């Protein structure tokens, strides 16, 4: 019976009631799509790490039978990194590496599709000449991302490249299998992804909750009336949950479809030097199922929380009693959460860091309405004109609603403040342009330098070769020509077994890549946060007008200029936004302090300023978009309560 009545209420809500339902559905859909992205990104980084693990060999344990020797080295072409995996079989039945039909025999080479294409595109003297002829192409399961340049080269176990001395980190090792382990880099990315997800998920949940309460706001009068005619609290709760869950479920399905449609675009986000496989970014069935179940459930719970006043007192909504004052306890919770941060550092466990950031983030959300009410009291007390008085009183009357409008941007302020301090600076390099350097075994630099001159001469590369105790440095004549540099690299390939000739920029490649990726990650996290924040501001602004349309209409009838109503509405948003946005930025920066790398840099501060500007502009634009709605509801010549 309840479900049938709920369905009737949902359908019979009229044009404006349906508008509220559509807004909720849209908000849940946006939340779901972004939530899927935030959650799946973690699994995507995990998948990448696991696919790359076989190239990060783990030495066979004492007593284990070694089946192969494996070593990984890095080479470069056109400023792109090539991962070269040298494999030598020990025994007659070595394991088959991922993405390959069989273990490579000595002299065989398997290329990733991107490397195969590049080798075909460039003259052999610039790239292909460094490797044996290509035997086959590596499958996706061997690659971290689709554009990765990887070469797997079969060797003999006693080949110089497998036995020559190298650094402790990249020396070939005897392995019991080819499982390997995820590299430190990939684990670093997973940690960054997890932090990014926490920063994105919290505003998303807040947004979803706001959307759920939007449904309740549209219905509370009606549900209070049902209580007055004798519906039990259980029936009211049941109907509220049913309505919110029906709408949320439709929103989740819409959001999932939207995510699927956006997938081709999302795969183009470049991380660790390349885009994504679509399968990486598509959620696994358990994740999808959990989302489809959890989001409507959360929306339902949020709706119940919003209905508490109706259930407790049927007259609560009908008579618009003064809401209970916010408790100072909220501020104490935030202070307690913040007190944990000075005790942390970069060596603190990731689980503790993520939990503390999440807690601080949620505490900002908890303290928001309390601050809004405080600001409202100050604004109302100091107001001289009607617009500020209306805004101040409104903030005191319903601080939660005002907070919902600005919470998204304020919480994005937290993210921006946090990331602004963490944004690393630009790498400074003292590398000589056009110079390739190769480390040489002690005492052999003169011989190696002589060999280098011979090879370069044969390859037709004009260069000067210098030597020191442990390095041979080759500077090509045409320093700015990447083709000449790659001919030099190819000519020097195998000069010192197991070592490649690299430029200073090559040596900084991983660091520069990490900086670039943190930059991309920051932009992605902030884009998601802003999208949510601005959508949230727009939806709550529209719903606030709909909720108060009768009051607005009557004020207009009595001659209140539209501009005054609009100014009041704007002040109602901008005053808490300024205070809470600024406060959240400071709290975010405070939380990032223990994890800073050196002093804050200009990039971070510029990003912060851009964020503040975009946030304000976005909320103002969202508010401006609802102005026609305000005009529409106030031109109704005979507003009646409905």
């Amino acid at each position, binding site marked *: 019976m309840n479900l049938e009545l709920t369905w009737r209420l949902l359908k019979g809500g009229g044009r404006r009631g349906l508008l509220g339902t559509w807004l909720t559905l849209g908000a849940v859909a946006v939340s779901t799509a972004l939530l899927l992205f935030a959650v799946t990104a973690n699994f995507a980084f995990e998948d990448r790490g696991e696919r790359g693990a076989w190239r990060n060999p783990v030495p066979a344990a004492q007593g284990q039978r070694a089946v192969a020797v494996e070593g990984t080295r890095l080479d470069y072409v056109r400023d792109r990194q090539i991962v070269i995996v040298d494999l030598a079989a020990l025994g007659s039945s070595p394991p088959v590496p991922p993405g390959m039909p069989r273990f490579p025999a000595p002299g065989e080479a398997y290329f990733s599709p991107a490397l195969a294409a590049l080798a075909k595109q460039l003259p052999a003297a610039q790239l292909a000449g460094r490797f044996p002829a290509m035997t086959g192409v590596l499958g996706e399961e061997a690659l971290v991302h689709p554009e990765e340049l990887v070469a797997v080269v079969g060797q003999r176990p006693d080949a110089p490249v497998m036995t020559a001395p190298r650094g402790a980190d990249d020396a070939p090792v005897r392995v019991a299998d080819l499982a390997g382990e995820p590299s430190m880099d990939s684990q670093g990315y997973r940690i960054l992804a997890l932090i990014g997800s926490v920063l994105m998920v919290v505003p998303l949940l807040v947004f979803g909750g706001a959307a759920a309460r939007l449904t309740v706001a549209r219905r509370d009068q009606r549900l209070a009336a049902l209580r007055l005619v004798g519906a039990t609290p259980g029936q009211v709760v049941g109907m509220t949950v049913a309505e919110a869950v029906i709408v949320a479920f439709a929103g989740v399905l819409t959001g999932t479809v939207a995510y699927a449609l956006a997938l081709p675009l999302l795969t183009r986000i470049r991380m660790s030097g390349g885009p994504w496989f679509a399968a990486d970014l598509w959620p696994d069935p358990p994740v999808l199922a959990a989302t489809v179940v959890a989001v409507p459930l959360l929306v339902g719970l949020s709706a119940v929380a919003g209905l508490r006043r109706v259930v407790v007192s049927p007259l609560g909504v009908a008579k618009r009693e*003064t809401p209970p004052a916010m408790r100072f306890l909220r501020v104490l919770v935030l202070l307690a959460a913040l007190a944990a941060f000075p005790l942390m550092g970069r060596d603190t466990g990731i689980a503790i860091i993520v939990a503390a950031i999440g807690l601080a983030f949620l505490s900002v959300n908890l303290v928001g309405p309390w601050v809004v009410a405080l600001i409202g009291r100050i604004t109302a007390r100091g107001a001289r004109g009607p617009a500020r008085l209306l805004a101040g009183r409104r903030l005191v009357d319903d601080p939660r609603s005002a907070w919902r409008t600005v919470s998204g941007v304020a919480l994005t302020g937290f993210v921006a403040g946090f990331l602004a301090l963490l944004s690393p600076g630009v790498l400074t390099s003292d590398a000589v342009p056009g110079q390739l350097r190769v480390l040489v075994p002690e005492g052999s630099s003169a011989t190696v330098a002589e060999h280098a001159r011979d090879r370069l001469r044969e390859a037709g590369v004009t260069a000067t070769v210098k030597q020191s105790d442990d390095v041979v440095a080759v500077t090509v004549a045409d320093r700015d020509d990447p083709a000449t540099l790659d001919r030099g690299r190819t000519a020097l390939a195998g000069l010192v077994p197991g070592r490649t000739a690299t430029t200073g920029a090559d040596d900084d490649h991983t660091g520069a890549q990490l900086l670039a990726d943190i930059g991309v990650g920051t932009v992605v996290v902030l884009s998601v946060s802003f999208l949510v924040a601005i959508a949230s501001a727009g939806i709550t602004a529209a719903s606030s007008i709909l909720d108060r349309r009768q009051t607005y209409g009557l004020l207009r009838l009595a001659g209140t200029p539209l501009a005054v109503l609009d100014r009041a509405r704007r002040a109602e948003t901008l005053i808490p936004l300024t205070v809470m946005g600024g406060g959240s930025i400071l709290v975010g920066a405070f939380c990032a302090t223990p994890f800073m790398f050196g002093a804050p840099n200009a990039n971070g501060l510029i990003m912060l300023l851009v964020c503040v500007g975009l946030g304000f502009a976005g909320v103002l634009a969202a508010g401006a978009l609802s102005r026609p709605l305000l005009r529409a509801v106030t031109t109704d010549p005979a507003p009646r309560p409905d």
Partner: protein
Amino acid sequence: MNDVLAGLALTKRFGQTVALGGVDIAVRAAEAVAIMGPSGSGKSTLLHCLAGIMKPDDGEVHLLGQRIDAMGERERSALRRTRFGFVFQFGQLLPELPAEENVALPLMLGGVARAQAVRQAREWFGPLGLQGMETRRPGELSGGQAQRVAIARALVTKPAVVFADEPTGALDQSTGHDTMRLLVEATRANGASLIVVTHDPNVAAWCDRTVEVRDGKLLAGGVPA
């Protein structure tokens, strides 16, 4: 001719429906006029046309000899704020403002400083039997008290005409009786005219004159004898 407000041959159509079909009506200074009629008769449309809320399709509206139906929305809005007062059935008080600020709001909208506006607003609380209610919010007032606050708000700007649309519609008989008495007395004491739209003869009985509207036309009494 001491008409404060006059409507001449007012016509208003909504699609095919004729809400007003050439209505003539005039109200004198400090006169209380009741507009009666069944639902859908056109009485609220007449009030909206006279108050400058709605423009008639044909006909003219004059306030103290000045034609107001030809004014733009901004001018009519200013007119409603300064020369007219409004009392509705319910919902006209802002729930978040205390009673005194609800009354002071029209003055503040007219540019009066807040402290002075609140001071002027408080002067209305005694005569209307609202002592001690100044800082209460509408949710903490009874229906009758809320209507008296609304009356104070309608009169605080010293308007020429007060429009009341079913002012006792949400009140019990005894409270409605008291509210009408206060509305008529306070309006008259301030030299303002009163136009009350109602379907209740008991409410109409408080007025000097009653005009009946049926199917968009006045049956009688549109112009004072």
